[in-house]
């Protein structure tokens, strides 16, 4: 039986996708615990729980902290010590595990997210630019009232045209497959697997293991989660050049793009539309995930074994898949590069959050094995063709085909990591607890109850 979710204590981003076309991420540093707590006390009023969120509003706010940020707010050492090591050291320190080497390495990140004094993140999703501007003015006002809270960097989000559906700068339709959490009203689409135990994504609930589910101190972590932030620049010009080089006709170029992803750019999966694009299928969430690989495509003749979609969700060809699922939220940033125009050299890409209850088992596994293991599915010398680290130019991409497969050698890197960090996403009560640390309003000390759970 599902444990009832405490929806009024869970930040909405975990369970709700809001209809935003723009937004802003603000990365912050606290000069003192008082400064951080003062900022947090005012910001809490803007944060909505999963129960209170209203998707007819015009803007939605989420707040999260790094481990150093929890420390900067004044959380005591005993409580801090209960967080897992990978969260404590942060994403930049895990660079080698994540494949963030070479041009992807933290020393090249552009937004200060590799700094040890990165403490907090405020995520704003907004319906339009006017609302984003209004929120920005309000937040600037708050910052002037909170001396000691410094903006390290910020990133403005922009959907790319056409605006009728979510897609990245390469043109791939996005938001096609997300896990559904047991205890919510969401119904999984055919092929997406059954609802998963909430503990895979939210701390304090049973997970898919059936085993005890350790978590850091309950006051801070219950109804919380971890978020891995990734700012990925997409090299649109290089991507289009690649398609032109490997496909003689527009149809062949579309097929190459589809083979890299596993879906046509319309979203139609190659398992169900192997020869020709089917945009209606791509737009139909009730049908576009209804397939598996063991029966439908064991050799990868439709969806290559190393394609992005097959790596990021190997479905029935991976063991233990229910323990590897993640929730993704985010948006594109940077200006749209119209088709046919040469690359203008401006940065554009995806800035996304991967949400999970266990960074090392879910996010780091996906990065380390699914994305960057050269020998995933015994492929020999491949990484994820879209987000894998292929900057050294030595990787291949194999497209199974009868009678003989096609092999592309010297696959270029289509993306570069430009920023990243690990955040903890507290529940609403925990936000209040943190905001009132060291004050009379904080009536109880954190207990280690959760650690033993």
């Amino acid at each position, binding site marked *: 039986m599902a444990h009832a979710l405490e929806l009024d204590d869970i930040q909405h981003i975990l369970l709700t996708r809001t209809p935003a076309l723009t937004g802003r991420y603000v990365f912050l540093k606290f000069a003192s615990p008082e400064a951080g707590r003062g900022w947090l006390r005012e910001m809490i009023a803007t944060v909505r729980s999963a129960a209170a969120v209203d998707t007819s509003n015009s803007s939605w706010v989420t707040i999260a902290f790094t481990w150093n940020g929890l420390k900067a707010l004044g959380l005591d050492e005993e409580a801090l010590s209960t967080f897992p090591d990978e969260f404590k050291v942060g994403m930049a320190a895990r660079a080698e595990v994540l494949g963030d080497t070479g041009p992807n390495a933290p020393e090249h990140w552009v937004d200060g997210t590799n700094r040890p004094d990165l403490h907090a993140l405020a995520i704003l999703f907004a319906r339009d630019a006017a609302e984003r501007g209004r929120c920005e003015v309000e937040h600037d006002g708050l910052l002037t009232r909170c001396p000691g809270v410094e903006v390290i960097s910020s990133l403005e989000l922009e959907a790319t045209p056409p605006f009728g559906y979510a897609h990245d700068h390469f043109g791939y339709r996005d938001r096609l497959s997300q896990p559904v959490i047991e205890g919510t009203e969401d119904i999984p689409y055919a092929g997406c697997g059954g609802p998963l135990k909430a503990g895979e994504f939210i701390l304090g609930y049973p997970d898919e293991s059936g085993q005890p589910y350790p978590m850091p101190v309950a006051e801070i972590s219950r109804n919380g989660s971890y978020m891995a932030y990734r700012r990925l620049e997409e090299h649109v010009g290089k991507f289009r050049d690649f398609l032109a080089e490997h496909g003689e006709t527009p149809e062949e170029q579309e097929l190459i793009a589809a083979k890299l992803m596993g879906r046509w750019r319309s979203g139609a999966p190659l398992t169900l539309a192997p020869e020709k694009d089917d945009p209606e299928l791509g737009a139909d969430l009730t049908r576009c995930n209804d397939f598996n690989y063991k029966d439908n495509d064991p050799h990868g003749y439709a969806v290559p074994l190393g394609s992005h979609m097959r790596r990021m969700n190997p479905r029935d060809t991976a063991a233990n898949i229910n323990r590897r699922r993640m929730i993704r939220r985010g948006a594109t940033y940077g200006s749209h590069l119209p088709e046919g125009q040469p690359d203008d050299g401006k940065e554009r890409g995806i800035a996304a959050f991967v949400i999970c209850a266990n960074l*090392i088992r879910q996010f780091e596994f996906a990065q380390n094995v699914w994305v960057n293991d050269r020998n995933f599915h015994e492929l020999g010398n491949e990484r994820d063709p879209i987000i894998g680290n292929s900057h050294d130019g030595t990787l291949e991409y194999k497209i199974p085909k009868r009678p003989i497969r096609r092999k592309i050698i010297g696959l270029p890197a289509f993306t570069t990591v430009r920023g990243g960090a690990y955040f903890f996403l507290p529940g609403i009560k925990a936000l209040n607890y943190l905001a009132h640390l060291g004050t009379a309003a904080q009536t109880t000390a954190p207990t280690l109850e959760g650690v033993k759970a």
Partner: protein
Amino acid sequence: MATVLEKPEVSNALPPAKVKGRQSAMHIPDGGYFPDKVEQGRFGPIFPRTPLNYGFTIIAKIKPGTEENFHNYARNIEAAVAATPDVLDVLKLHTLKWALFDIEGSTYFMYQGIFDTDFDKYTEDAVNIFSSTGIDTVFENLEGFPADWKSNPQAFIGFVREHHRPSFMEYAEYSYVSAKEVKSALELKQSFGTMLDNMQL
């Protein structure tokens, strides 16, 4: 960058000294790592790939009087594999060898496994396969094995690392070849034989 037609080849991911499928021997420094090439995995440094691919030789003292448990576990695994041949698939094994032996009055267990992937990558999957199939783990009979191994993969792999005795020489008659490639070659030979048989009709 170019598109080329496939042709028989050795993997171009390996330098000439590591040609796939050929005889190869490797001396490994004390401690099991090449100090200038240590790769970091999720749970710590990864032991290097050798001509045998990856492997562990775990040697640990058993809890006194548990010898029969080890034999029972061996029987369980024999039955599980007979019933479901791919039950251990997730471990990406080539071979597994277990032995019990005595040193100065104490009994020790040796677990030697040869894998196609570093154990670090699929630790949680291995833990899951042990607990979900009822095979459980024979390691529970070893002194110092963490009681919370099912929910604590870090502790599990910590024990494995602590009791691993790295090789200092490994040799393979056919090096850097995966079990899947071996099985694929055998299947191809079988299929080719069948094709020739059919040509006699």
